[in-house]
């Protein structure tokens, strides 16, 4: 692994996004607007106060997953990935370069979404705003790393698109948004307890209600971070220099 090559890759990816104004705009604003839409739908009801934190976990996560997996898919199709893998670029350099670039974008994107939810839509946060940002950003990084894993694992464009429902939807269904996890059938509850998005939702709810101590929140951040690390390691292992 080489820091210079990681940073060169990060700079290149950010440079590509910078040249595409529409993508940049969509990337930064769509999650905030979706949160705003949910707040609007539930005007004059207490619902947004209840599900608002989960929405902050959901939208940046999905958007980052999609953007990252499509970006690496484009590398595959344009032949740039094959070229890069014939050069002295480590597989981890490639994955980390992407993780860092989209991680930075995720931070800005989540910052906008959280700010919009709190200051424009009036989401009530009883706990620390700093912790809310921290959880939301780790959550968006989770979307990035799982997107990288999906596209490193995929062998074709169709497969990448299919990984979106396969990787993301179960986490949404079992994360406790539709039904609190302790009311799920026991097997599903256990599975949900091991999925990273569940912990992001738990942590954001806890910060908003301020009914847990900081240790509870940091434990969940640590759990998500372990998933991020694992996804990046497995992603760089499944990327193949030689293809059929």
């Amino acid at each position, binding site marked *: 692994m080489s820091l210079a*090559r990681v940073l060169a890759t990060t700079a290149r990816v950010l440079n590509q996004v910078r040249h595409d104004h529409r993508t940049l705009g969509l990337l930064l604003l769509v999650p905030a607007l979706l949160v705003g839409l949910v707040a609007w739908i539930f005007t004059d009801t207490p619902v947004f106060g209840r599900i608002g934190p989960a929405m902050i976990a959901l939208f940046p996560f999905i958007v980052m997953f999609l953007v990252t997996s499509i970006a690496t898919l484009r590398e595959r199709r*344009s*032949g740039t990935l094959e070229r890069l893998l*014939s*050069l002295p670029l480590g597989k981890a350099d490639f994955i980390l370069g992407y993780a860092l670039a989209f991680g930075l974008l995720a931070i800005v994107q989540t910052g906008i979404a959280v700010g919009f939810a709190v200051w424009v839509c009036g989401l009530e946060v009883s706990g620390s705003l700093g912790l809310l940002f921290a959880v939301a950003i780790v959550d968006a990084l989770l979307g990035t790393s799982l997107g990288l894993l999906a596209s490193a694992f995929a062998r074709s464009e169709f497969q990448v698109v299919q990984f979106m429902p396969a990787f993301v939807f179960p986490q949404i269904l079992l994360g406790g948004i539709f039904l609190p996890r302790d009311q799920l059938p026991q097997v599903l509850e256990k599975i949900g307890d091991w999925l990273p998005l569940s912990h992001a939702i738990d942590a954001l709810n806890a910060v908003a209600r301020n009914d847990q101590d900081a240790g509870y929140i940091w434990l969940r951040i640590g759990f998500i971070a372990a998933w991020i690390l694992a996804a990046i390691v497995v992603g760089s292992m499944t990327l193949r220099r030689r293809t059929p």
Partner: protein
Amino acid sequence: MDADTAAISITGLKVLRGKNLVLPGLDLLVPRGEVVGLLGPSGCGKSTLMRAIVGTQIISGGDVKVLGDTAGSPALRRRVGYMSQEAGIYDDLPVAANLNYFAKILGAPPAQVAAVIERTGLGSVARSMAADLSGGQRSRLSLAIALLGSPELLVLDEPTVGLDPVLRVALWELFAELAAEGVALLVSSHVMDEATRCDRLILMREGEIVAQETPGSLLERTGTDNAEDAFLALIRAAQEPGTDTPHVPKHRAGSEEA
């Protein structure tokens, strides 16, 4: 030329794609410091062979040695330049930014970027987005990237396809220049009349090498005056068992043989 001094030395290379044996056991020696043309119809296995040499192709058997190392080994990644048939460039970056990125990955000095832009004649479009380039300019950008890092071996898959004749000549002159500097070049083409520009020819058909020799000796041996006819003559000879020397094709009767 023996296996140790050769730029590329292949024995018994087998590549399976699905259930098809694309390369059924191929042997090849390519010397250094020459422009070697790899000619053959589309689908004969040229690109597969090139990917095996670069080390991006899964092979099911045989031994591929490049510059004394096993193909695809980490040490070779900065010594071999590769241009595939897909352009392998970033459409949403300017030409110079494309080159800068690959130069950083290779650890090539930044001054080399300007040098390869000059050599491939991309000076006038250096600031344009790669997406706005013409087909010929795209393939020259791809070639420029392959030239970065001063590789000892260049593997170029159809670098002249779609170029106008003037540019094509200029590129072949560039290849000869590079060979004179000691670079080994393996250049594929399905256009037979580019054969005479090479120092050595490899003719491929259906995953097998039909001939490997200099253009002059190929034409002499087959009694033809161009690579296309020589290719046909060799195939006919192979289809007639018991003959050692190929027949001269008759469709040009009355011209040279007279």
